[in-house]
């Protein structure tokens, strides 16, 4: 029973007015997103049985990236967040890509000219 039993100093309406900067995402948005996510899951399974050579992993990763963006923007509310949150998420992904890019360029060029 750790519920805060302190009386509120205001009613529902004024709380919503006070928090009007905070966007409450409606369940319909979530329903739409989950529908798209399920369709994309079916699509990525279907695409994996189609012979596309080197494009198979690219298509799979593109679909995964699209699903990730939907989850981040809507389920994780980044679309409705402040610039600080948006910048934090963007900076994290960017830093990760820089680390991958730099490490990969090392592996690709280490034996450069020796094959």
């Amino acid at each position, binding site marked *: 029973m750790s519920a805060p039993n302190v009386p509120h*100093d*205001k009613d529902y309406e*004024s709380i919503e007015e006070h928090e009007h900067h905070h966007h409450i995402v409606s369940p319909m948005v979530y329903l739409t*997103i989950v529908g798209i996510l399920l369709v994309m*899951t079916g699509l990525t399974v279907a695409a994996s049985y189609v012979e596309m050579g080197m494009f*198979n992993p690219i298509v799979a990763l593109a679909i995964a990236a699209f699903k*990730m963006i939907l989850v981040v923007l809507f389920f994780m509310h980044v679309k409705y967040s402040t610039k600080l*949150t948006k910048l934090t998420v963007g900076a994290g992904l960017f830093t990760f890509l820089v680390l991958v890019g730099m490490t990969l360029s090392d*592996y690709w060029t280490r034996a450069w000219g020796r094959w």
Partner: protein
Amino acid sequence: MDNAIASTQALPNQPLMPHESAVHDEHDPHVVLPQHRHHFETEEQQREAGSFGMWLFLLTEIMFFGGLFFAYLLYRNWYYPAFAVASVQLSVPLGAFNTVMLISSGFFMALGVWAAEVRKRELLVWMLVLTTFFGCVFLGVKVVEYKEKWEHHHIPGPSFSVAEFVNPAAYGIDEKPLAPDMATHTQIFFFLYFAMTGMHALHMIIGIAILGVMIFRARAGAYTTGHVTFVENFGLYWHFVDIIWIYLFPLLYLISRHQ
């Protein structure tokens, strides 16, 4: 317990104390709610700080899983034949089913955050229960998959066997046999498979433990009085775990399928 819940729900309808309503002014940014810590200027600032902190934690998680993903990318390039053949051993129907379970779990988590925000205590409890349920189904399927790997001696270690990869015809597998030296590299695939899915599963087990506590506290009305930060930040964690699986599923199960 029921009486306690009823009294928690009845709280907002209680008559306001005169001096408190006098203090409240919609233009005054310093409105004090019970959950408001004194070192934050406003409740929005407090909420923002909590969310920022959670995202910083998730960035460290991106780097952690990112290292595993990068190792997978590199070894798959080096030992492509071994990785392709070993990857085909994984069950696409089970993986796809688990993806649907995780997406459903994430959907109910998102609805749970909504329920907390609109202060529907009963609905929040049910959404958290459904989130937990689909998470548990996912882990159950994972157990079935791990057991199958155990039976085929595909768990890296002393009892690892390349027999199915050097002589697939003897096991009724319709694949080209691998040269013995390349076949030993299938062990790297399975090591990364268990490291990545195992770490993912560990995150889910931790998440389910926290969900259990949250259901208990949500029943007592802890998150439906305007203080939704905990539910919201746990939601971020749970969706992050979803995203990891969104990448794991195609990379481990799907991209070598077409050969």
